């Protein structure tokens, strides 16, 4: 039994590493071998500008961290070795800036926003969903259900735009200019209340957007799960035993109804992090998504590649965490080893 328990985590971790490995390999071949890949384009551009071919190849070598004179498999091994050392090459646009520095400057802001948003929306969604299930067919349920189904159907970038136009421009509740970026000019990242408040102020619009656009899913799922759990025999038995309502709601109904939501949470993490490109562009929030769209516009391939790998790795790790959380809450999973 104990061995199976250990194996579940081991297998889960192995799968995660395999996924990251495949993502990195895929990116390598996209950049290196696809017809019209950025390396060929870069070299032909340089040659067109009058650079001798060998010099152009040398420049491409240093920018893309490859050695084009070597066979492809040697290049691939060298690329993997560099990645393992956290070396993603240097940016084409911001010359001589290591890509990893750029990623590390922007990534924390996105993780900060995404973590807070998903946590709050999950918590509120579960609460509202339970409320809807207990008060089903009352006006509370109808209002919340309609709200949830409307808000889930609206794409998150549309919600973001409407927030800016309605609350920023029309009602003037906040200044659309100064709220941009991840912190105000002159504020230094440090452990102080001022910094935290400033960071939260700048992050507030993306956070509200993510909460609004994900909460509906949790509410509707939690409601239907709770309703079906309420009909289970063990809930009736618990009632018959005279357990308090609070205990039945949390330990008997809630715990079982919330379980399937964790699988969706894993998918949701990927969706929110992935959508950050759109949301951060709309609010001009200086996170990894905004950097990615800037890098795409300027065709800064080393940066695109690094951000993509880092985003995938974060999502894979977040998935592992969600899975572990799930298995902690549901002992059956550990036994089955899925």
């Amino acid at each position, binding site marked *: 039994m104990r061995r199976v328990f250990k194996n579940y985590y081991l297998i889960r971790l192995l799968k995660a590493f*395999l996924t990251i490995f495949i993502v990195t390999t895929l*990116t390598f071949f996209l950049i290196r071998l696809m017809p019209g890949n950025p390396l060929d384009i870069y070299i032909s551009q340089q040659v067109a500008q009058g650079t001798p071919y060998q010099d152009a190849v040398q420049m491409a070598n240093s920018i893309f961290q490859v050695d084009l004179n070597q066979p492809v498999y040697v290049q691939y091994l060298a690329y993997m070795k560099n990645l393992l050392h956290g070396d993603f090459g240097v940016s084409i646009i911001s010359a001589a800036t290591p890509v990893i520095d750029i990623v590390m400057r922007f990534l924390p802001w996105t993780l900060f926003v995404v973590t807070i948003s998903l946590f709050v929306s999950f918590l509120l969604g579960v609460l509202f969903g339970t409320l809807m299930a207990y008060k089903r067919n009352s006006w509370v349920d109808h209002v919340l259900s309609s709200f949830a189904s409307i808000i889930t*159907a609206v*794409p998150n970038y*549309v919600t973001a735009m409407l927030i800016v136009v309605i609350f920023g*421009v029309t009602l003037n509740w906040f200044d659309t200019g100064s709220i941009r970026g991840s912190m105000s000019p002159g504020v230094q990242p440090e452990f102080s209340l001022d910094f935290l408040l400033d960071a939260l102020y700048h992050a507030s619009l993306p956070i509200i957007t993510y909460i609004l656009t994900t909460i509906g899913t949790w509410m509707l799922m939690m409601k239907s799960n709770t309703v079906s759990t309420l009909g289970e025999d063990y809930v009736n038995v618990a009632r018959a035993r005279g357990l308090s309502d609070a205990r039945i709601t949390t330990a008997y109904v809630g715990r079982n109804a919330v379980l399937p939501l964790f699988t969706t949470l894993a998918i949701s993490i990927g969706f929110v992090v*992935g959508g950050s490109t*759109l949301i951060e562009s709309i609010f001009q929030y200086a996170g990894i998504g905004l950097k990615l769209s800037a890098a*795409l516009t300027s065709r800064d391939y080393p940066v695109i590649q690094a951000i993509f790998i880092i985003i*995938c790795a974060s999502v894979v790790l977040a998935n592992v965490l969600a899975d572990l959380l799930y298995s902690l809450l549901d002992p059956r999973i550990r036994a089955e080893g899925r």
Partner: protein
Amino acid sequence: MQRLSLLISSLRQTLRIMARNRVGFAGFILTMFVVLLAMLGPFFIHLDMTAHTELIYQGPSAAHWLGTDNQGRDIMMQIISGGRSVVYVGALAAFLTVAVGVTLGSLAAVVGGWVDSVINGVAEIVITIPKFPLLLVLAGFIQLDSPTGLALILASIGWGSLMRAIRAQVLSLKERDYVQAARALGLPTSHLLFKEIMPNMMSYILVQFVMNMTDAVYSQVGLVFLGIVPLESNNWGVMLQYAWRFGAIFSANSRWFLFVPIFMIVLLQFSLVTMSRSLDEVFNPRLRVGE
């Protein structure tokens, strides 16, 4: 002739069941409206994309019912002609996603063994890689300017979770008594799959088609909005991008350029989602009991 009348009566029955769920039926009607407008509308209008500098950002008027854009061009004509690629890419991507998901899902469930393991392994990776960044990166390397190509790519990265669900359903359905009975009669696997198992999954597949269409519309408009995918010049996503970039948000008259495409996109998404609920009822008689 008899077949035709049979078809008509079954269509009538479908519509009657749908009409019982009023919200879902409204979703169906609205979806039909948007789809017909987007697909047929362009035949009936003359799109004039020449700039009229004296007409920039006019509010609604008799000449321009929904106002004009940042170059003085009529917004309503752009809306009518700009929906076609949105609907086309959405529907084609959803169709391909469902085709791939159902094929691979039933293959994995019916064949089993190493085929099952391989398909599952690939699906797990496809599901884990966040779709939108992958699309962005792919768009950086591949020219995504053809709607059909975009739909193909959307389908090739979107089949994972559908395949899993189909596999689970086929696995459970193939153990049912009636399937076992058909197998005992010596009927071929193709018969079991298409005549016994598939009809029981039709409702699920259709609902998935609609949900995948909303996903595809989301991704497509998002890509166009970021300026990554240069589709035709007049597309709801392109209108959003222009409105956002060229200051349409700052005055009441110019906001029409932003709000009208937003309204169309939200209307399409919302009616699709609503319709999928009533479809569930049409194909799933158990949900109808007690109405």
